[in-house]
């Protein structure tokens, strides 16, 4: 496979898994939680590195899941102490992120393959250089393999928990009264957000993953009222933005992850203008509602 081919496949996998998870993030009104977790994952990765002294996939995944759960837990705990949700989130993620940055710049040292720049912006251009060989598939970049794995987990979880998440997202009260383990489902979901985030980390970095998580799902939300259609649309928007972003970056020679985030913005802008039901143009064209007698 060519160099550009691997990059496109990796980016599309990011778009696909983020698009799926993002739908539930938006419907549960937890978009900023994605922002928070994407920042704190950095602390998880740095801690995993400091404990094991190596940068390997499984350790990073585990560290990131723990950091994601810690964030979710701390936010809930502060909220139970009557701190408002927005403030609780703001305190937790900035502090954990700051600790992560301090650890990187003091304890990790310069020679490790882990620096802040890398963590924030991702280095998708280096991904095809680090190949591993897997049985059946052959040679594949390590980050791509990890993303494919994360994507499968996400897909699997969405299929298994489809009904449960549908109920908990749209009507938490009903879910609780039906006896669904709402809190457990919440933490399972948070772990999945962390898994997706850390798997996308190498490719697009901590902050651009927020764009991939939220924006395609928000665009899809403007086109449809059905959950299944929204999931399909959102993941396709994710893949389209990834590819368009790569093309833009190759065209004007700039940061790939930055252009991918920008491309999600373009997809949203088009949806914002053209969506048949909620779009701006539809708002002008649609005849005024007749006055009811």
């Amino acid at each position, binding site marked *: 496979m060519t160099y550009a081919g691997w990059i496109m496949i990796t980016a599309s996998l990011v778009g696909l898994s983020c698009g799926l998870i993002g739908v539930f993030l938006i419907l549960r009104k937890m978009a900023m939680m994605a922002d928070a977790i994407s920042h704190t994952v950095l602390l998880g990765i740095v801690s995993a590195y400091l404990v094991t002294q190596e940068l390997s996939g499984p350790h990073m995944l585990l560290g990131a899941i723990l950091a994601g759960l810690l964030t979710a837990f701390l936010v809930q705990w502060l909220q139970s102490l009557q701190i408002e949700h927005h403030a609780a989130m703001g305190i937790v993620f900035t502090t954990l992120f700051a600790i992560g940055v301090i650890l990187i710049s003091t304890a990790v040292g310069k020679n490790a393959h882990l620096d802040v720049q890398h963590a924030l912006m991702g280095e998708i251009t280096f991904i095809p250089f680090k190949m591993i060989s897997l049985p059946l598939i052959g040679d594949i970049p390590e980050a791509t393999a990890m993303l494919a794995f994360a994507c499968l987990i996400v897909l699997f979880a969405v299929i298994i928990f489809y009904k449960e998440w549908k109920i908990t997202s749209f009507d938490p009260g009903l879910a609780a009264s039906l006896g669904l383990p709402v809190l457990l489902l919440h933490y399972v979901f948070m772990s999945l957000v962390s898994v997706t985030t850390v798997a996308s980390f190498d490719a697009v970095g901590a902050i651009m993953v927020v764009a991939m998580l*939220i924006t395609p799902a928000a665009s899809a939300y403007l086109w449809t009222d059905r959950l299944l259609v929204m999931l399909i649309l959102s993941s396709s928007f994710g893949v389209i933005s990834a590819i368009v972003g790569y093309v833009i970056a190759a065209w004007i020679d700039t940061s790939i992850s930055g252009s991918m985030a920008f491309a999600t913005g373009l997809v949203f802008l088009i949806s914002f203008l053209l969506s048949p039901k909620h779009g*701006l143009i539809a708002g002008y064209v649609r005849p005024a509602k007749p006055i009811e007698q």
Partner: protein
Amino acid sequence: MWSSLMMSNVQWVLISTMILGVAAGTIGCIAYWKKQSLMSDALAHAALPGVVIAFLVLGEKNLFVLMIGAAGTALAGAFFIQWIRSSTRITADTAMGMILSVFYGLGIMLLAIANRTASGNQSGLDSFIFGQAAAMVRSDVMTMLSLAVAVILIVLILFKEWKIYLFDPQFAQGSGLSLRGMDVIYTTVLVTTIVIGIQAVGVILIAALLIIPSVSARYWTQSFRTMVLLSAAFGGVSGAAGTLISTLGSGWPTGPFIVVTAASLFVLSLIFGKEKGIFIQYWQHKARQKMLSQQQADRQLGPNRVEEGIQ
């Protein structure tokens, strides 16, 4: 450490981050009561493309022009968030997350282009992401100081108006105070604080300096005036202490140390705070328990005593 303190540049930087902390702490209280803590985070990220655009247009690094650029895109971000929220069914937090990440992505795109140019490579634009107070020169410090003082003055002069605006909007309308005008002033002051903070603290962490001191102050008082004063003090201490710590190592970023100092003050407030701190609540809880069990004991003992009396 003391020898590095004697250098006048360090002193100036120290003063400016302290004043920045005071300004952020004051504005943070208003943002806290408007329930817009995360809005400041979104606006800070949205300021990044503005910094780079201003640099690309001007071709050199002039802090004042970069600040105007930053304020421009931050305000555009605020406008978009408001527009998306009011004209579609997308909720405020989704709109904030979107604007934050898409604008930041645009900033990174432009930054890669600016870093390719010869002057851009050495301009230290990267330090806007995490803040590098040590990179500030005298003129930067002066710009920052005067804007921060202006922000603090605006909050102090309009103090009564802020109180009405935050806590009794209906009365404000009745008494002829323009809520829209106050909204404009609030957004301007908030964006100014963010913009002067990004050089020292960085776009990613400046929101923390607005959020954490105000929440910490909330643990010590019920009065808005005291809250603002305390929050300003917490912010100032964090700014100065964080900067001092970051001068101890070479190349240590300033922003994260400021945030961690602020967070330690928050943890102290959370535990020992006079109003809702964990200690005082535990103590009150114990006292109440004791009182209740005492009452219960009295009630149980009561009839017995009567019986004893009869015998």
